[in-house]
């Protein structure tokens, strides 16, 4: 699937923490962070998903054209006029998400992201017809090749819209 660099900076972490309504100073206040055993600002536990911003093959990209490979893969899903070619789909749901943490994710890290498919399976759903499940595994490693975060995402493709 994809291998790309994910450079982490304080602004991206600030934006991400702000969107969660965070008040914890560890995500933005350097003076506070330096006085803790962590020694620096760190990212919130789910920040690894923001690697999508640097994934040249990412779907769901809205109007953004960069970064993108010169020969991009075909857009999937409901990319339509006026929707910015976002590659969005009403039938693709996020079923499960798991993170394994190996070390704190800090600003200044130049992470290497490696994305690979995991298991796939099918199930008959109660409300959404046939459900197709597929795992995507993303490894983020630091400059020395040490793991920082491993992310496992389970996507579900449904036959019809599912209401919660």
């Amino acid at each position, binding site marked *: 699937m994809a291998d790309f660099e994910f450079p982490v900076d304080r602004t991206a972490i600030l934006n991400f923490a702000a969107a969660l309504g965070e008040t914890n100073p*560890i995500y933005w206040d350097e003076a506070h962070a330096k006085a*803790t055993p962590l020694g620096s600002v760190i990212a919130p*536990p789910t920040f690894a998903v923001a690697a*999508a911003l640097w994934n040249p093959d990412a779907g769901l990209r809205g109007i953004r054209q960069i970064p993108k490979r010169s020969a991009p893969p075909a857009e999937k899903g409901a990319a339509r006029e006026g929707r910015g070619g976002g590659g969005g789909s009403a039938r693709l749901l*996020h079923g*499960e998400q798991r993170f394994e943490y190996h070390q*704190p994710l800090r600003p200044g890290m130049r992470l290497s992201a490696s994305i690979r498919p995991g298991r796939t399976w099918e199930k008959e759903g109660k409300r959404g017809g046939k459900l197709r499940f597929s795992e995507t595994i993303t490894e983020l490693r630091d400059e020395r090749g040490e793991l920082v975060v491993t992310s496992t995402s389970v996507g579900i493709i449904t036959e019809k819209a599912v209401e919660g």
Partner: protein
Amino acid sequence: MSTNPKLRAGELAVGASREQVVAENLSRTQIVMYAGASGDFNPIHHDEPFATGGAGYPSVFAHGMLTMGLTGRLLTDWLGDGVLRSFGVRFVRQVWPGDTLTATGTVTSVGADGQVGIELVTTNQRGEPVVAGEAVAQLPV
């Protein structure tokens, strides 16, 4: 690995729990902020005509990952920063604009090595679970 724990494993007993309101009257603005910060611009999360038209939903709804991130606030506010070893959830129900979410964590195990297992559930204002999951934290003994 450096951490900044808020408590020791010995201060937690199996069955101990904590809850926190992690979103009150969730706004479309917050959903849009999350789209920008995470890079997930699926129009189902911000484009009302798209969500209610062909897609057939009553309105836009929050990214599952926004709800997971909000649930993570319970863990870090309770246990500390950099202490998580794993964090996983299943998305069981959509979260809509106007929802108020309460995350609850319950201690399921306390290891002699300081590893603490937490069961998680986040519910909406009707008491319906929106995510369920589990986390493992490494705390000082």
